[in-house]
């Protein structure tokens, strides 16, 4: 039997029972569109998350206080909420002297209320040096960033996030020159940051107050250690070499001889990107796997309908065998019908998935003004087509075998 005859015959059968065909493929349509939507949104979310890490700056080495005990799956103690005081000014000074280091910027972070008049908001405040703005790509769109002189002189000046500016001062108002209270300390607003979204550490960077690190440490937090330190590697040095240098310097500074006992954790921006990429990939696949359960349900629906179809068309099977069809011809015919059902279901699922992903992109970018990319990965489409066809074969083979095994006499006698 020619392939063209198989396709023509299957098309005629499916067309004859249009409503049944549509309802039968519904499970596959839902399954494939779910997989497409989750994989597409997963890819967009991955892009978004990675762009946030890339937005930290370039060529960065991130130092977090506390070791990981060299365990593969453990995080630094500070990341688990434990206060670790191992990173101090002498480390920053030592790192700054190394030729592989272009810049060092440190942070001492705290939380508290920021208020202006009757308006108040719980925020994260960050004590940072003046070079923080350039190293970490924080652009001041209104006003100016504070300077080294402000930091040295313990000036009470602040640069605030764009959302906080709206919350405290109202939309369209100019906060520059106004005085705000942060944790009961008065600051003069000298700049407002450009909209930046949520940062790599989960901090809403538009609801942030940046103040001189000297003020934050001495007058607000009463500490002499840093929450994290970021090193911008000299671009003429390999980043991994710079990372090794940073580790060496800190171990010397902290008198550590066994690298397994480091009281700090170093990651390059590339390490973080790779880790986050892996995590988001796994999450996307996990979600897609859950969505593919509906494909199994859809496949069972197809098998059910195909079994009914085999019974209904028993006489047709008898006739076809009486005019020369072999068991293989009958098996192929029913198998092609089920694969065609799932294949068409897959195509419709891809179209619906694309439509939903497009609508989600419109809502997220236009409605919530989040820089979300439209991702419709070719891998998801290929996977959907392959999975839907395999589903057709897997769930169509049993009914097709039942049809092929029918004795022509029994089939012709069937009423």
């Amino acid at each position, binding site marked *: *039997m*020619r392939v*063209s*005859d198989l396709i023509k*015959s299957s098309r*005629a*059968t499916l067309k*004859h029972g249009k409503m049944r065909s549509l309802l039968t493929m519904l499970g596959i349509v839902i399954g494939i569109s779910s997989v497409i939507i989750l994989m597409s949104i997963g890819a967009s979310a991955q892009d978004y998350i990675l762009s946030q890490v890339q937005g930290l700056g370039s060529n960065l080495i991130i130092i977090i206080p506390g070791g990981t005990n060299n365990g593969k799956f453990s995080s630094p103690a500070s990341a688990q909420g434990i206060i670790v005081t191992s990173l101090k000014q002498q480390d920053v000074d030592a790192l700054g002297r190394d030729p592989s280091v272009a810049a060092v910027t440190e942070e001492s972070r705290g939380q508290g209320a920021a208020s202006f008049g009757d308006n108040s908001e719980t925020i994260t405040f960050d004590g940072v040096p003046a070079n923080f703005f350039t190293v970490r790509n924080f652009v001041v769109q209104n006003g100016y960033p504070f300077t080294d002189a402000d930091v040295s002189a313990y000036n009470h000046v602040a640069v605030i996030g764009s959302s906080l500016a709206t919350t405290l001062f109202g939309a369209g108002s100019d906060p520059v020159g106004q005085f705000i209270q942060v944790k009961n300390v008065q600051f003069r607003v000298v700049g407002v940051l450009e909209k930046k979204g949520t940062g790599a550490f989960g901090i809403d960077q538009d609801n942030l107050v940046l103040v001189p690190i000297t003020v934050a440490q001495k007058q607000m937090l009463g500490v002499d250690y840093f929450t994290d330190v970021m090193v911008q590697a000299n671009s003429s040095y390999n980043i991994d070499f710079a990372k090794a240098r940073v580790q060496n310097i800190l171990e010397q500074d902290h008198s550590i001889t066994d690298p397994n006992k480091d009281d700090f954790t170093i990651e390059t921006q590339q390490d973080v990107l790779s880790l986050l990429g892996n995590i988001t990939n796994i999450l996307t696949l996990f979600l897609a796997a859950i969505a593919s359960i509906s494909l199994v349900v859809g496949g069972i629906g197809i098998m059910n309908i195909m079994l009914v179809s085999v019974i209904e068309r028993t*006489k*047709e099977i*008898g*006739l*076809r*065998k*009486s*005019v*020369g*069809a*072999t*068991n*293989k*011809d009958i098996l192929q015919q029913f198998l092609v019908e089920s694969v065609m059902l799932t294949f068409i279901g897959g195509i419709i699922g891809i179209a619906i998935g694309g439509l939903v992903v497009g609508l989600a992109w419109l809502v997220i970018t236009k409605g919530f003004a989040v820089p979300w990319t439209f991702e419709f990965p070719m891998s998801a489409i290929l996977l959907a087509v392959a999975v839907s066809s395999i589903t057709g074969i897997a769930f169509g083979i049993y009914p097709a075998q039942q049809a092929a095994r029918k004795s*022509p*006499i029994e089939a*012709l006698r069937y009423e």
Partner: protein
Amino acid sequence: MIEVNDLKKDYIDEGEVTSALRGVSFTIHKGDFVSIMGPSGSGKSTLVQILSFLDRSTGGSYTFNGKKIDDLSDVELAHIRNKSIGFVFQSFNLLTRLSVYENVEIPLIYSDVDPAARKKMIETAVHNVGLDEKLYVETAKLSGGQKQRIAIARALVNDPDVIFADEPTGNLDSVSGAQVMDILDGLNQAGRTVILVTHETNTAEFADRIIRLRDGAIESDTPVHNPRHSKNQFFK
């Protein structure tokens, strides 16, 4: 052409053996028109099923065009059914969701005839039963007589050696029945072997010879001295 010798068929149901054929022997030559008659349960359907390769005997031998059927595989039997046999059933067995053209095309699909060559073969077969104007009509819209003529066109399309007609007039009125017998008679007069299963004596007498079965054995095998040849309007 067809030679059966001591042909037997036993059915075993829950250990109980029922003999449908108890040793049947006869020969049918190319171009013969043979009617097989007999009451219900006489074994005529079983005999025709074996003769048309839809079933196998449990004893004796069957030779078709010099080939021993017992030696052939199921695939080879399917191939012979496709190339050498044409079936006409009492209940037409047309696929009503398909057009006349598509129904007549079915045997050609399994004989791997090139789609481009099929059209001419289908048109000729449908022309031979006098229904050219119905070529693209859905078979569901045809009358009983027209359906049976289309079933004959389907049986003819592969130019088979033998036509098996199982009660072909059983579901038809007398006018349509006469038309169908006209066609079968014409086919035989054009040189084709026709084997007709019927319980109607009038219909059986279109043949040159009648084999009567009773209880799985041949009761009589007699020539028809004055066959009721039709007006032969289709194949003359």
